[in-house]
């Protein structure tokens, strides 16, 4: 299955790119996506996760066509 992975703000700097397109099979969680995509870079504390632009947690299961995003605490306003 195909999953788009996005990294925002300081996480984009950490990973060195702003997105990945992954082809991956099986029962995959958000945490698995991070490990596969980043080559096991430790996830910074307080990292936030969104699946299809909704806040999610690391245990959420990812499906074909999903967009998974990782980002630090938000600082708008």
């Amino acid at each position, binding site marked *: 299955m195909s999953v788009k992975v*996005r990294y*925002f*703000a*300081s996480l984009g*700097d950490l990973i060195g790119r702003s997105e990945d397109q992954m082809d991956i099979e099986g029962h995959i969680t958000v945490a698995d996506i991070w490990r596969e995509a980043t080559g096991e870079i430790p996830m910074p504390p307080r990292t936030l996760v*969104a699946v299809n*632009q*909704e*806040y999610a947690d690391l245990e959420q299961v990812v499906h074909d066509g999903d967009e998974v*995003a990782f*980002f*630090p*605490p*938000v*600082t*708008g*306003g």
Partner: protein
Amino acid sequence: MPLVRIVEGPFQPWALLAELEPELGLRPGGFGATAVFTGTMRDFNEGDGVTAMTLEHYPGMTERHLERIIDEACGRFDILDALIVHRVGPIAPGETIVLTAVWSAHRRAAFEANRFLMEELKHRAPFWKKEALADGSARWVEQNTPG
């Protein structure tokens, strides 16, 4: 009709508010209270001089969450309408970052809902600030000032 707008260039907040207010379709004489907030880029933060800033967002998710924050405000408070305008991209000190406004019959709801919009926006809306400091370095802002 609530209005959410992400803008990439500088805007004069009071002129923009005057321009957008008629788009909401409020009935003249139908509201008695309007509460407005603007956040402006300071040239200092956490004790350091800040010369410039860049605001990143998550196109799509950001708008969706701003709209949801307004929906929640409409559910919690007796308000008639609301708008949120938020800047993205490079920003200079003195420029407006965010504009929120709420219209209601009576002042309490406008005050409370407007503050709710800002607190929720600060905690939930996907925006990230990167500051350029006076010493030439840059840093991602790690968290907002408590409100």
